[in-house]
């Protein structure tokens, strides 16, 4: 079990949270959408990073305050390196 620090509620058990997959996926602008190829659309819709190392992902405190936030988590050690608010750019972290 992970102990995740909700930015509002503090450390809570993993079972209170729901996983929201990869963070920082920008939706194409309207202009881009008009000129995008099917391959580019597929890339935006389906292709996800699957790193062995630090992964930036979204979580929601579903059984608590119901707020979304971002988490930087190491996919091997499960270490939670950073919790940061929605809308913030991914932090620059030293690779471990």
């Amino acid at each position, binding site marked *: 079990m992970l102990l995740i620090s909700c930015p*509002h509620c503090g450390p809570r058990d993993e079972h209170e949270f729901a996983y929201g997959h990869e963070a920082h996926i920008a939706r194409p602008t309207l202009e881009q959408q008009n000129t995008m190829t099917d391959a580019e659309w597929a890339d935006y819709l389906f292709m996800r990073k699957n790193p062995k190392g630090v992964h930036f992902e979204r979580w929601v405190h579903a059984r608590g*305050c*119901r707020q979304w936030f971002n988490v930087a988590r190491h996919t091997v050690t499960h270490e939670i390196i950073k919790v940061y608010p929605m809308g913030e750019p991914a932090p620059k972290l030293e690779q471990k």
Partner: protein
Amino acid sequence: MAEAYTRRSPLQHFGLTAAAAKSNAAGAEVLIGESAHRAIVNIRGDGGEAFKAAVRSVTGVDLPVKPNTTAQAGAFRILWLGPTEWWVVTTSGAEEKLVADLRQAFIGQHAAVIDVSESRAVITLSGTKARDMLARGCSLDLHPRVFGPGQCAQTGLTKANIMLDQTDAAPSFDIYVLKSFADYLWQWFWLIGRDYKLAIKAH
């Protein structure tokens, strides 16, 4: 809102009033009971000064903006649910006027007022072993140096989602649970309660 005369407690079939009369509270480690129906009004807004002033003008309560805390003034108790969401809890029957008053006070603001009274049942738990009993199904640290009166938390208790509100240092807890989960949660308490001296409290 259900008419008061058609409202049935989700725990009615356990016959708690009669059970409480037969229950021996002397020497009990845990007292468990079902609170009378409460008025619960969900309010949403930015929590800013205008919002706080509107809430204060209706309830007399200073809105708790610190996460997972409660505040009380007179008959009104406010529980923090999220950075933009609170519950105003008061005695049953007051919900209609409370909703109308709050909506009036929020005019011109980006806010919402919803009566959710009928959604929850309230199970009360108190006594020296109340924390131990909760710890059997709840992952929160309820040690007095971490969790005390004036604090509340939405969390999971066994498989039910609850709002846990510590009302005094006895300790006493109010457990708000969805009505459809109330029977399950009561039976779970009953199962776990075999390990403690349990008594039913009348409300």
